[in-house]
């Protein structure tokens, strides 16, 4: 068997094409103009909150019951209460637009707002113990 032939280039290009096409399909079929909040605990995504759902609730992440979030009806989310000494997270206020983020570093919690669709393709969905 040889190592490489001309026809290989065709195969490689078609693989690249398939990936581009499927990425395109994903972007246009599943495209929605929403944002969601991702809550990370110690760099692990532990919760995702859809900000468009119109719910209003107060909740905390199971990993750390002392930090409390509040999701507002208008689609914003904020740190409401925390046991950290500096309360920087609470001062960050309500987050609503993609790209914003707030963190409670003493507790190891990071919350960021991401576009509901675009990030999904290459963002971290799952961290498997590496």
């Amino acid at each position: 068997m040889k190592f490489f032939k001309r026809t290989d280039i065709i195969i490689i290009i078609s693989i690249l094409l398939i990936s581009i096409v499927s990425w395109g399909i994903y972007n246009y079929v599943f495209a929605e103009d929403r944002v969601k909040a991702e809550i990370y605990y110690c760099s692990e995504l532990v919760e995702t909150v859809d900000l468009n759902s119109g719910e209003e609730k107060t909740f905390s992440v199971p990993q750390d019951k002392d930090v409390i979030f509040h999701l507002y009806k208008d689609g914003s989310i904020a740190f409401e209460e925390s046991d950290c000494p500096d309360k920087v997270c609470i001062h960050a206020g309500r987050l609503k637009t993609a790209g914003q983020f707030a963190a409670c570093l003493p507790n190891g919690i990071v919350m960021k707002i991401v576009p509901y669709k675009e990030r999904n393709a290459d963002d971290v969905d799952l961290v498997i113990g590496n």
Partner: protein
Amino acid sequence: MITNTRINNLNKTQMLVLTAMIFATALVLAIVENILPPLPIAVPGVKFGLSNIAVMYALFFLGEKQAYTIGILKSVFVFITRGGIAGLLSLSGGILSITVMILLMAIFREKITYLIISIFGAVFHNVGQFIVITVIYTGMNMWAYLPVLLISGLAAGIVTSTLLKFIMPAFQRLA
């Protein structure tokens, strides 16, 4: 059935020892790969799969049974060291990858190249892992991940087969 690059004239003991050594090589490659700094790519867990070099070598030069053995034993090793899910991923990725490579070699005989076999092996290794993940953690979007699987498999396949190519002359002398 497979194009004959097999090493001939090996009695059972020699085959056993050689397989074991290749298996050890696969493990060492996996460990070394883990130590290297993580790639600056958004998706973690994307690896070059250097241990695939050893598996491919086994497939080309030793035999299908030997390749499967190494694949399964490697999964057991991953299971012992990194836990149940990782072991399951390694098993599914490895088995699927080896099966696809064998099919490719059987269907295409001389017309296939090492590069394509390696690429398909890497891609289907990712696919196998992805299938297990989808089964365990529902809600992963297939279309979103397909490009990642394909491209990382492509890159990994190219890297591993190139490395294998450089090693091959040394192994040819064994045969």
